[in-house]
């Protein structure tokens, strides 16, 4: 059977530095940080009292939810996911049929931790012996698939409606799995994306791991420093990103705006063997994931123009650069341009991959590179491998064709996608 070509026709985003694609694109171009100080984290004695959370107005809430849906609603991840998902659907020019479901359209919408605030509220009531007072919506707000369930109903999706979860790889993996489903002819169109709750009850475990920066509470916008010599940990974030993927035939038939094509990708795991562990990547698997994505896409390593890295601003950034360099067989000035969105947004955890894919697709469509912010001195180990000229610190207009995006997550899981201009 002939494989279908898969293109991106809609984008939606709920990012700490911009809610909605127009605001997000402007933030990318201007290198705008979405990192803020949170008094609540200070009160709770967190070491890291800063983070990235999308600023959602009541007007945005009312745009996507009915007053009834907002009654007793306390699941930020669903709010972010629905705002991004419905925006992407509308951006793709797709209508919603209130009567019939569409068996050709589905969603894979990933989460890490979902409905934490609602869950916390429920736990208090349960422990007080007040389970009967939870109300009717605590299940749908706290189940992992809550976000895909809300979106499926709002959009009338009749194909696969599910949620994936693979830590910080989640978003990129959701897009890869949706791509595979369309390519194989099992769906015409998929809403692919991911979302993550934020705040103290999500970020606490990372604070306890002492992997968040603690010296920037007075200076939040400068805390997230991917590839910098003074990178001191990732800044926790949250939000959601969403892409509408569909067959090229369907997009052309509808006369839809095509943002980019997905040429291929790969996902794998390092099995927590060799140097891999629950929290560290096995470099053998990372490199294999990248090279397998290239061969799946039918392109050579030399054709990669730009890399959107995972690059979280921890001590692992130099290892990631090393892995890219070895996988592609390219170094110094021959290395592709590379950037990391996390300087502006922090690490949006399960949402990072999808938000960063939205950024990548905008870069391809509008032919520019967003700046790596807070990069004053490139880490010496990185400078040994690649030329600093490949790491733009200003917005750069660039004619280019192919961008590679990878995400890596706890559990030693990897995913790499190859996007092309069309």
């Amino acid at each position, binding site marked *: 059977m002939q494989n279908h070509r898969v293109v991106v026709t809609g984008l939606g985003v709920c990012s700490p530095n911009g809610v909605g694609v127009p605001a997000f694109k402007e933030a990318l171009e201007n290198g705008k940080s979405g990192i803020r100080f949170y008094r609540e984290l200070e009160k709770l004695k967190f070491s890291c009292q800063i983070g990235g959370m999308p600023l959602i107005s009541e007007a945005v809430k009312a745009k996507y939810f009915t007053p009834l849906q907002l*009654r*007793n609603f306390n699941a930020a991840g669903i709010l972010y996911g629905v705002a991004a998902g419905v925006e992407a659907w509308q951006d793709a020019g797709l209508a919603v049929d209130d009567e019939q479901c569409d068996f050709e359209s589905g969603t894979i919408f990933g989460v890490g931790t979902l409905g934490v605030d609602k869950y916390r509220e429920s736990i208090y009531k349960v422990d007080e012996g007040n389970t*009967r*007072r939870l*109300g*009717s919506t605590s299940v749908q707000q706290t189940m992992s698939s809550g976000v895909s369930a809300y979106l499926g109903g709002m959009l009338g999706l009749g194909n696969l409606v599910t949620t994936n979860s693979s830590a910080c790889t989640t978003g990129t993996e959701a897009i890869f799995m949706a791509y595979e489903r369309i390519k194989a002819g099992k769906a015409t169109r998929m809403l692919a994306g991911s979302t993550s709750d934020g705040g103290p009850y999500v970020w606490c475990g990372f604070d306890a791991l002492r992997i968040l920066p603690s010296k920037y509470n007075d200076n939040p916008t400068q805390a997230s420093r991917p590839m910098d010599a003074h990178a001191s940990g990732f800044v926790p974030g949250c939000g959601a990103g969403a892409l509408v993927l569909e067959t090229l035939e369907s997009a052309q038939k509808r006369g839809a705006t095509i943002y980019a094509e997905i040429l291929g990708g790969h996902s794998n795991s390092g099995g927590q063997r060799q140097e891999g562990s629950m929290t560290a990547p096995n470099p053998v698997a990372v490199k294999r994931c990248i090279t397998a994505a290239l061969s799946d896409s039918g392109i050579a390593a030399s054709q990669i123009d730009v890399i959107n890295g995972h690059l979280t601003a921890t001590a692992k950034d130099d290892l990631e650069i090393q892995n890219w360099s070895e996988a592609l067989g390219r170094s110094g000035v021959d290395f592709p341009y590379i950037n990391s969105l996390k300087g502006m947004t922090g690490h949006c955890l399960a949402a990072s991959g999808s938000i960063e894919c939205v950024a990548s697709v905008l870069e391809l469509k509008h032919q520019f590179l967003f700046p790596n912010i807070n990069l004053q001195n490139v880490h010496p180990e990185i400078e040994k491998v690649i030329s600093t000229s490949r790491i733009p610190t200003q917005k750069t207009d660039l004619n280019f064709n192919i961008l590679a995006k990878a995400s890596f997550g706890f559990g030693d899981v990897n995913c790499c996608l190859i996007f092309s201009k069309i």
Partner: protein
Amino acid sequence: MSQDIYPKLKEIIKPYLPEDVNPDAISPESHLVTDLNINSTHLVDIVLDVEDAFDITIEDDELDNMETVTASIALIEQKLATR
């Protein structure tokens, strides 16, 4: 007493109406699910709102007595009388 309860109950029911049902459609005879099209899972929310508004407790086996507006008013009256 029921004259006081009816408008209060109407206000409680209103937010649970589907978007295509006008609040004017609420009448004493209305069946919450079949006439007003309220999603049956929301009946537990209406019970909680009624409990809060009238400071009463409605037992699980009494939910069947809240199917219509009139039946709900009768149950609330009975609860208030025995409080």
